[in-house]
């Protein structure tokens, strides 16, 4: 559906045609896309017209979300957290009460 909308705005009716789904199912799918702020729905006369939200598409594309990327980059961040924890533990042995202060730092994000 996003592929179809990337060619330009389309009515809900026009979006239903290429799919072997009821207009009700298509409307439900569109509602999800609207809620996810990917699609904007406007009324033009009696027809509802759907347009891709350009910024949303750009973010989805730039991000090119992949499961693998999610985990690889989360691991990068986990590494930073583990190193920080290691330092805190070392510091806590000598000096209690530093932990919370260190936790509040988010400069790496």
């Amino acid at each position, binding site marked *: 559906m996003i592929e179809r909308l990337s060619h330009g705005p389309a009515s809900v009716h026009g979006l239903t045609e290429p799919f072997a789904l009821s207009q009700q199912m298509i409307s439900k799918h569109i509602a999800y896309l609207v809620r*996810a702020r990917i699609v904007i729905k406007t009324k033009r006369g009696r027809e509802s017209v759907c347009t891709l939200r350009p910024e949303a598409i750009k973010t989805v594309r730039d991000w090119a979300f*992949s499961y693998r*990327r999610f985990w690889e980059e989360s691991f990068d961040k986990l590494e930073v*957290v583990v190193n920080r924890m*290691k330092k805190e533990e070392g510091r806590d042995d000598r000096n209690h009460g530093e932990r919370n202060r260190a936790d509040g730092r988010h400069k790496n994000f």
Partner: protein
Amino acid sequence: MTETTVNEIERMVVTRIFDAPRELVWKAWTDPKYVMQWWGPKGFTSPVCKMDFRVGGKFLCCMRMPDGQEFWNAGEYHEIVPQEKIVSSMYFSDSKGNKIEPAQLGIEHEAIDGAYDVTIFEDLGNDRTKLTFIGNEPMESAKNSGQMEGWNQILDKVAAVVTKLAQAK
């Protein structure tokens, strides 16, 4: 620890060796206080992370993009072997933890039916820990996304950072 068999689809696997003892890596992975600090790709923050860390317990984590857009993931813990192994499931959800299809978010994710995510913690000795994440996604699908080269570059960078940290000690 044989979690894969030869005739199973090759899965997406991410491994990382941490220069830290296993109990520390386990803590960073299982305590929401720490999970919130690393959950999500680069540039994302995690404003909410709830974890009922026990077998049958559920988790709900939010990741927020720099532009404010939020993505929620929920899942369940199926098996927990302390400091060794976690078997869990994960799916995209709304902020209440109700499952939603990734396609509805404009995300492609090809999951293997009936398969779970498996996280393995291995003590390599000398306060080093190997973390292995076996994801519920076929390897082929990860390769086809054309990002394998990118990951190799990222891992090279990470290795350089770790080496520097180790030398600084």
